[in-house]
């Protein structure tokens, strides 16, 4: 598996993601500037955390118009795996690749803290290495992580088991305690917590590895399938 990590101007978790993928999980990962417009040759695309374009209008609102986003949309439409973490999640909702929106935390403060999550759906490309209802701890670090969707969209998300991670103690006001969701097709994931910050025991734990290992597993299985 080969991963692309998009660097938007203002991204600041891009190199952290690359480190976690490559150095810790053994998944080759390249940094791709948002000014490029091709993603040929990659099995998965990561949109990292940070403050793309300063997040000055709404988080993710301006990043969505970067040249690379056309390629990301094509990549997703073709069934490629796309993962947005924190600001990446915000960009994916702004770009319409995931439903809903991320609003200011109800405390109106940026929150940096460990969050305990329940893995509520392990039948996804991003969570199959976890066990059903496993409790994992991942750091959150965001000001706008309060997930909102209108009632119809929300019911739809739940009906199609698109919620992957839920907070055990809701830190930010997210509806239905949502911490991470996929699109209907299941190939696009958005999550506010940072798995890349929790892949080394030295830094407090390895719960985040499951996301990357799940994906690597999925891609490998698919390759076996194709080859077979």
């Amino acid at each position, binding site marked *: 598996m080969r991963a692309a990590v998009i660097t938007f101007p203002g991204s600041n978790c891009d190199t952290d993601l690359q480190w976690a993928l490559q150095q810790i999980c053994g998944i080759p990962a390249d940094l791709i500037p948002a000014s490029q417009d091709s993603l040929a040759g990659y099995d998965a695309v990561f949109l990292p955390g940070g403050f793309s374009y300063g997040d000055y*209008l*709404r988080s993710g*609102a*301006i990043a969505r*118009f970067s040249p690379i986003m056309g390629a990301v949309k094509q990549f997703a439409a073709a069934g490629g795996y796309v993962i947005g973490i924190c600001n990446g999640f915000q960009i994916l*909702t*702004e770009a319409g690749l995931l*439903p*809903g*929106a991320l*609003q*200011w*935390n*109800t*405390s*109106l403060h940026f929150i940096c803290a460990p969050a305990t999550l329940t893995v509520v759906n392990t039948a996804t490309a991003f969570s199959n290495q976890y066990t059903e209802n496993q409790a994992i701890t991942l750091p959150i670090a965001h000001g706008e992580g*309060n997930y*909102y*969707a*209108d009632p119809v969209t929300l019911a739809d998300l739940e009906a199609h088991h698109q919620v992957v991670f839920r907070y055990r103690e809701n830190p930010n*006001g997210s509806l239905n305690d949502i911490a991470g969701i996929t699109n209907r097709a299941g190939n696009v994931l958005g999550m506010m917590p940072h798995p890349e910050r929790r892949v080394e025991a030295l830094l407090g734990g390895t719960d985040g590895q499951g996301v990357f290992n799940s994906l690597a597993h999925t891609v490998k299985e698919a390759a076996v399938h194709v080859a077979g």
Partner: protein
Amino acid sequence: MYKAKIYVNYKPSVLDPKAEAIKTALTRMDHQNVQDVLYGKYFELTLDGTDEAAVRDQVESICDQLLANVNMETYRFDLEAV
């Protein structure tokens, strides 16, 4: 040349934590007679152009694409020639 005055607000069904915080602060500051707070964004764009209808369309598309998130916000604008 046109000037567009654009107002972007949360949809009424969306709880706005910032507006809530302002209301709480006002109550604490002894402004109990404030019944309601709406907190939105205000933009003024100055646009080159001569065809009012075309400029109107353009502003509308700027709002839809960039200035408002239609999942949770609504907008309105006034356009005047300057």
